[in-house]
């Protein structure tokens, strides 16, 4: 028998052995992965899918780091509506790597965007352009907004400086950028506050090199204030709600996710202590057959999230959570649809396709 490198490869290297016939409950993690201890403080950020990771970590008894919690006088349902508890601090969804980098720089005073206050939708109140949905109805005054932002950024600094593990879910490559200073907004101006101005706002679709560069810069800065920080990168499986690229939204989604996936791989390969976790593959891969998407083929079901987190906890913490049931071949669509429950997450990107008021 001829010897060649594939002879000694593990089963995970072969589609037939590790994917074919395995059903949706596959485990696509191979090789070394981060080890998570119960006492490790885990912080999360990213696109809306990252909210699921935060929720499951909390529920699994891990030390989910929250440096910006709601004040105890605030009723829980109100706190949730105001963006508390979704992530480690109240920054809302961070869709692009550039946004993450700029959050760090804003927190440490290295970047002060020129456009830093927006009128709220409807004209009453003010919105923070960098977390436009965290204060429903808007802030009552500029002084209130600025005081809240100062507090928020102090909590962000505390998070960066005290976390042990940072889980960042890459969501988008498409973004809206200030032509004045390059500030990246999580939502297009005018969608949830602000006024779109073609002279001051331009569309940008980040390329792989830019995402890699932004992530590398972020890691360097994070390690500058927290040398021991370990990082897990994931790519959100949630397709784009809308694209401004001129491409079909499906093709735009493929581009965006491909760039993010490639960038995550390069970063994980080049930076010690940075790991890639394949939640994207678990949800969107052929084995799942769209099973983990809700009827809109965009939102991820609780079943899918549970599978992602069971794989995550198995490899990060050695915990065997119950895996989702294997899909029966004869299962009719109606059965699948009935079993799917949408995961309630704050996905403000969906506002891009909101009907006109």
């Amino acid at each position, binding site marked *: 028998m001829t010897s060649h490198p594939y002879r000694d490869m593990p089963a995970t290297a072969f589609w037939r052995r590790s994917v074919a016939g395995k059903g949706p409950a596959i485990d696509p993690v191979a090789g070394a992965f981060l080890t998570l201890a119960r006492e490790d403080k885990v912080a999360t950020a990213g696109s809306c899918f990252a909210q699921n990771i935060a929720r499951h970590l909390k529920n699994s008894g891990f030390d989910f780091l929250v440096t910006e919690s*709601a*004040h*105890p*006088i*605030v*009723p829980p349902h*109100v*706190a949730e509506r*105001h963006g508390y508890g979704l992530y480690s601090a109240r920054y809302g969804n961070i869709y692009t790597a550039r946004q993450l980098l700029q959050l760090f720089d804003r927190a440490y005073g290295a970047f002060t965007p020129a456009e830093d206050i927006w009128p709220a939708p409807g004209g009453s109140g003010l919105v923070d352009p960098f977390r436009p949905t965290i*204060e*429903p*109805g808007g*802030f*009552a*005054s500029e*002084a*209130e907004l600025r*005081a*809240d932002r*100062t*507090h928020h950024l102090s909590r962000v600094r505390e998070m960066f400086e005290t976390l042990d593990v940072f889980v960042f879910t890459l969501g988008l490559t498409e973004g809206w950028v200030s032509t004045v200073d390059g500030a990246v907004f999580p939502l297009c101006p005018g969608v949830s506050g602000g006024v779109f101005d073609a002279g001051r706002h331009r569309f940008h679709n980040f390329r792989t090199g830019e995402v890699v560069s932004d992530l590398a810069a972020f890691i360097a800065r994070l390690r500058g204030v927290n040398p021991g920080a370990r990082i897990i990168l994931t790519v959100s499986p949630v397709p784009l709600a809308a694209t401004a690229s001129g491409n079909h939204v499906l093709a735009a989604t493929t581009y965006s996710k491909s760039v993010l996936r490639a960038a995550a791989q390069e970063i994980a390969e080049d930076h010690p202590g940075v790991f890639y976790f394949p939640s994207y593959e678990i949800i969107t891969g052929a084995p799942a057959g769209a099973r983990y998407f809700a009827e809109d083929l965009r939102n991820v079901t609780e079943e899918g999230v549970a599978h992602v987190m069971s794989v995550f906890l198995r490899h990060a913490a050695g915990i065997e959570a119950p895996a989702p049931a294997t899909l029966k071949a004869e299962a009719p669509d109606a059965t699948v649809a009935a079993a799917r429950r949408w995961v309630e997450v704050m996905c403000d990107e969906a506002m891009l396709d909101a009907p006109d008021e």
Partner: protein
Amino acid sequence: MSRAILVIGQSHVAAIRAAAKIRREADPERLRTRVIHTIEPQYAPELVGDGDEARFAPALAEAIGDQITRHDPLVASASGGNVHNGFALIRHPRPYDFLLSGEDGPPLDPEAEPLSEALVRAALENGLARDRARLRAIRRVAGAAIQLESPPPLADSAAIAAQADAYFKDRGIAALGVASPRLRYKIWRLHSRIIAGYCAELGLGFLPVPRETQDDNGFLLPHLAGDATHGNAAYGEAVIRGLEAM
């Protein structure tokens, strides 16, 4: 005004009752101001039902109806008016502050966690469910009525600490300290705005505290305080005069 007055409420009716007693003793022929304290034992359980369906218990509704039938009074409500004290009399272990919208209120305490007014409003409203139910119940029983703004807070924190009643002492006011006067004032103002909003929704009037009971910064004048959170007979007299002037 040539009408008797009926004031319905809880702890804040004490100032009105004391003022009315002094008036009655001075001039027995004067039109009377009467009060109904809704949580006195004979009216228990005060409210029956939940939420929008909450109503005064039959004994209480009957007592109010009887007063209205017999005296055709101007009906006022001193209902509630304590939730703001629950929030801002004792210094919170996690100090917070907020800015009042629409007026030049006190600035933020730099040592406190800034909250948006919307969050503080939500917190207050969460605590105001019973007071709101009382207002609905009054509207049902009395028709048109006037809600009295609750007395402003005292500016003097030491006086509050010394006069705080058992409720606040049990909650550790001695150990935690008294909240800052600025927060007390802002919480009271926001509380009043919320109550005024409820009244507007329900078709009830809202009578602000008599200006002469406040100092230049809006706090209750010390000589009008009955204790840390209530007015005294002189305060009650000022309120009655305010009602008579309507």
